């Protein structure tokens, strides 16, 4: 009788053993960040969280991406079959004249500086901007961009036959331009400042001083 009593486990001991077993089962969850029992284990899947703040979108990068997409789409196009098709592809301004600077910028055209591709390009670029004060429209100063012009021309095209190299030596007037002097050598003959009209050149509002 006493032997039977010794062999059977008392109920208190049984419940204690159950508690220990449950506690041991909890240990991996506590140690290894496992979900509580009853919930599915996500495994190694990455945890998706909402961004804490609105991501910054750079308009310059977005514009660049847009241009890149246009350029890539154009690269897939077959080369224009004839000049009429080429003309249709060139970007136009609001008066339906070719916007040559836009054509350069979006790489519709990549004009060469030499006839023979193996020869050295004699062109030189420059990025000095010249401020031309205007007497007639003091609020609309003209800023001459060397950078834009040297994408087409080289120094000797304008210096020193049309303009001397020293800034301020030429007295440029709209009448002189209309007579085909200074800017008028090219402008309104083969070249148009964009946007068309006065604002193509007279685009900078002078600061009040």
């Amino acid at each position, binding site marked *: 009788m006493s032997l039977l009593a010794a062999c059977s486990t008392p109920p208190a001991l049984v419940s204690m053993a159950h508690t220990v077993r449950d506690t041991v089962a909890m240990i991996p969850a506590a140690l290894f960040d496992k979900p509580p029992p009853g919930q599915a284990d996500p495994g190694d899947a990455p945890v998706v969280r909402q961004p804490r703040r609105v991501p910054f979108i750079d308009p310059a990068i977005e514009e660049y991406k847009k241009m890149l997409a246009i350029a890539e789409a154009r690269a897939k196009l077959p080369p224009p079959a004839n000049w009429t098709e080429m003309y249709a592809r060139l970007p136009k301004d609001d008066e339906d004249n070719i916007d040559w600077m836009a054509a350069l910028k979006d790489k519709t055209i990549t004009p060469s500086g030499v006839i023979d591709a193996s020869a050295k390009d004699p062109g030189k670029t420059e990025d000095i901007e010249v401020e031309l004060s205007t007497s007639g429209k003091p609020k609309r100063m003209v800023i001459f961009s060397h950078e834009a012009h040297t994408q087409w*021309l080289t120094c000797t095209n304008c210096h020193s036959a049309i303009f001397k190299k020293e800034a301020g030596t030429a007295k440029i007037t709209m009448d002189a331009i209309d007579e085909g002097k200074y800017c008028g050598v090219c402008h309104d003959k083969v070249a148009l400042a964009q946007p068309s009209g006065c604002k193509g050149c007279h685009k900078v509002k002078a600061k009040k001083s």
Partner: protein
Amino acid sequence: MIRLLRFVVLVLLPWVLTAAVAAPSPTVLGDIRFERKSKGDEEFAPAVFPHWVHRVRYKCYVCHNKEMGFAFKSGSVAITMESIDQGKYCGACHKGEPAFGISFETCNRCHRK
């Protein structure tokens, strides 16, 4: 009615189609019609220089330089067919490569109305 249809199909339609396909290239700012100064066939159209076509491929200074001799003024150089044959002016490129050469097949590519 059938006559009218036949007229439309046989005469008007081809005329419209050819007009659409062979549309002359548009007159663009910078196009130069050379004035004929040398004595020649007065019946024959003087040459037209489409500036924009050349701007697509080349920068200004490729032609507007001392070696080539083109000044920034239309009509400032006397271009003759002889000088082109000698490789001057237009002849620097228009000799087959890189641009089409001068021959009786290509007259009307420049000399057009």
